[in-house]
């Protein structure tokens, strides 16, 4: 049960728009699950609902069988990289991770470990406002890893990463899955997902249209991009 992420009839309505429409699925440990969709398909909203940041209009999201909001020291259960959850610009990377560690009773030594893991140990004492986009993204990944959680959620983690960073991230994601963690990665970069994911969830207009192993999804079309665009355009008709 630990590490399994379960969505049951999850929905989110903003006024008259259904951003997430009755999504049910189980995200399992030991593999990289790619979470695909066009901009505005509901990926980020779904991830925010899993984390208890947005309230579902219907349904539930369960982490290891529990609601996120009920978890004690949740960073030890779920690590997340979110869009637009930046560190305060005047604070150093080290201090940003330090308060996160304090909040969940994570040993201070972990802060240095994760800074080293994302290759920010030299920049750790500098204010975050001087960071490049890629460095900010790596700090976000360090924050996700801080509690050594069995579940990792990454919302568009490749944003701002350079080719070396993308390669590093891809190997890291596969490594986390190989360690038996549950890894959910949202992206709209098909070529990158084709190299990284083992399993796919595809959201189109808030609805889950595919919950399939990658090879099966691709098989009929030869490449992931074609298969994805076919599914998206088919749904629009």
């Amino acid at each position: 049960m630990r590490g399994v992420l379960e969505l049951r009839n999850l929905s989110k309505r903003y006024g008259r728009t259904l951003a997430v429409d009755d999504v049910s699925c189980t995200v399992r440990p030991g593999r990289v699950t790619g979470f695909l969709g066009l901009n505005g398909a509901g990926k980020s909203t779904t991830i925010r609902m899993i984390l208890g940041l947005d309230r579902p209009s219907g349904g539930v999201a369960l982490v290891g069988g529990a609601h996120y909001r009920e978890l004690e020291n949740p960073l030890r259960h779920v690590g997340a990289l979110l869009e637009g959850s930046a560190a305060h610009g005047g604070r150093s990377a080290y201090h940003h991770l330090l308060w996160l560690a304090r909040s969940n009773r994570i040993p201070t030594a972990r802060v240095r470990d994760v800074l080293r893991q994302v290759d920010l140990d030299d920049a750790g004492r500098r204010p975050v406002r001087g960071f490049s986009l890629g460095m900010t993204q790596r700090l976000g990944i360090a924050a996700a890893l801080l509690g050594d959680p069995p579940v990792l959620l990454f919302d568009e983690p490749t944003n701002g990463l350079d080719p070396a960073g993308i390669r590093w991230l891809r190997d890291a994601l596969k490594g986390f899955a190989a360690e038996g963690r549950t890894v959910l990665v949202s992206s709209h970069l098909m070529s990158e997902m084709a190299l990284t994911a083992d399993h796919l969830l595809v959201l189109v207009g808030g609805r889950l249209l595919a919950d399939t192993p990658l090879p099966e999804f691709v098989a009929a079309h030869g490449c992931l991009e074609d298969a994805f665009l076919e599914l998206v355009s088919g749904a629009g008709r």
Partner: protein
Amino acid sequence: MSAVRAELVKLRTVRSTPITLALAFCLSAGLGVLLGSAFRSTETANFDPLFAAFYGVTLAQIPLVAFAVLAIGNEYRSGTIRASLAAVPRRGRFLAAKIAAVLVYLVPAAAVTVAAAFLSAQAALGARGVGPGDAGAPEALVGAWIHLVLIGLFALGFAVLVRSPVVALGVLLPFLLLGSQGLGNVPVVRRVTQYLPDQLGWVIMHLAGDQDDPRWARDYGPWTGLALLALWAVAALGAGYAALRRRDS
């Protein structure tokens, strides 16, 4: 406790904390000297040495209000609030930790601010000055201290409610500056304005004028004023908590 420790790290590691708190001290000490010097040789009918001490507090409270607003407002501005609520998902626990950490700084800072205002003003008043143990002074000193802490908590609650340091300060500052011009003493509107949060500490701080004079007498006593301010603070924090629970982050 872990949530409180996290909030203390946050406050310790931003520059706005030392800047706002030092500014409160400088303003209260500086205004105390200015006001004390002004009253030293001026003949006024109802001279009150405590007025000179505490009038500066109405301006020195502004950086303390800014401190409380920024403690949460900065999180909304930078997006850190999402990381905070992911780390401490129970909204009540998060807000309680934020309040506790703010109090760790605000309670001593308010005490120092009040002491600086009083001592500098009385020293500048020379022979007309009073000591901290003289009639009315202990009550006024404690009252001013409590006033500053409560106004800070009110500002914190308001900032949670509006989710923006710019909006919170944009509303609170003009209102505190107008208040220092004696909004609660303006004859026509005073029936209402005397109950505004920044006015309720004025009786105990000897800023509302001679309370035996019907022109200035307020409809509440010194301690009742502070109790009403405490209600404002509780209401603002309660509204902030309700909003934090209900809305998406």
